[in-house]
């Protein structure tokens, strides 16, 4: 892994990669790191999703990568341009945590992590993409790497070490 080609995915960003290399995003809290992989084509995609629903977006240019409902279809079409097929794609995801305990003045938006995860599941289900593994929820931050050859998703956290999905 030391010499691997790493493509970084920023916050509210998405990217795709064919073959040798890793897609990586860091510091997922309530955000969801959603990955898609087509093993036959060896094409992977990753989105760092912040919010469930683009309908709340204000005027101006919509950042598709930010919202679950727009990021996932965009990721699928970007991967298809690299030769992937939606019928072969499988999804893995991590994140969607609740980093701080909800206090009395904390409204619904405190639960943004679980809502992000729910929305990702719903969008994937509409696209008939199976979720084969996930490490979501809890109150921990995560960094993830998707290997675009094997489809293995590596999840790192501060207190819990490394986990492979």
């Amino acid at each position, binding site marked *: 892994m030391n010499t691997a080609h790493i493509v970084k995915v920023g*916050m509210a960003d998405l990217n795709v990669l064919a073959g040798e290399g890793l897609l990586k995003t860091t510091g997922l*809290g*309530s955000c969801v790191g959603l990955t898609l992989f087509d093993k036959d084509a060896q094409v992977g995609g990753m989105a760092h999703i912040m919010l469930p629903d683009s309908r709340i977006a*204000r005027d101006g240019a919509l950042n598709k990568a930010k919202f679950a409902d727009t990021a996932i279809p965009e990721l699928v079409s970007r991967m298809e341009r690299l030769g992937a097929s939606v019928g072969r794609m499988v999804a893995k995801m991590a994140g969607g945590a609740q980093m701080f*305990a909800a*206090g009395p*003045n904390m409204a619904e*938006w405190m639960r943004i992590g679980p809502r992000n995860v729910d929305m990702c599941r719903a969008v994937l289900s509409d696209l008939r993409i199976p979720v084969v593994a996930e490490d979501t929820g809890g109150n921990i931050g995560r960094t993830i790497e998707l290997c675009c050859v094997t489809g293995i998703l590596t999840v790192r956290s*501060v*207190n819990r070490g490394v986990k492979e999905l």
Partner: protein
Amino acid sequence: MGMHERLGDFQYDVLKEIGNIGAGHAATALSHLLGKPIGMSVPHVSVLSFEQVFEALGGSEEPVVAVFLRVVGDSSGNMFFIIKPDSAKHLLHHLAGLEVDESGDFSDMELSALCEIGNILTGTYLTSLADFTRLLMVPTVPSVAVDMLGAVLSFGILNYGVTGDHVLMIDTAFTQGQVQVGGNFLYIPDPESFPVLFRALGVPFE
């Protein structure tokens, strides 16, 4: 044009002075709480984008102790007190006089103490900011987390689904005798609060 480019030296001086007044009050409160003289100062105040905050504090994977609270009132927003884990241990040991395990995880007692210290600091800073701007700004109950900077901070950007792209970062130094410990306050006004806050500071906002 970004807010930080619109701010003049004068406004930075004002924000820094507010920080110093708040730090003065916070130092008094902390000294009473801990039963010994604690000094506090604000060496630097800046208005940054989120990317710049991540860079300034060591990257989005950097482990930090974060006390978070929501501010409600005329200028609502999210406030964080961010301190590096080793600095937090220093603060607890040398300033608060707690027995700490310098290398280990944070105990519930330590987290509770940090949460309370963060509460006092953010509360006094908010009070001096509110006094100066004559805006109503009320802190809510704080909570604490120890985790990656990106994971804890992204939470503050999410509010109501819109991104307020600017963060007011207030560097802070605590001193007790020869010991000095640094931490940072971050205030992220809700997007609709930014014009309110900056008009109150005398910065034109169209």
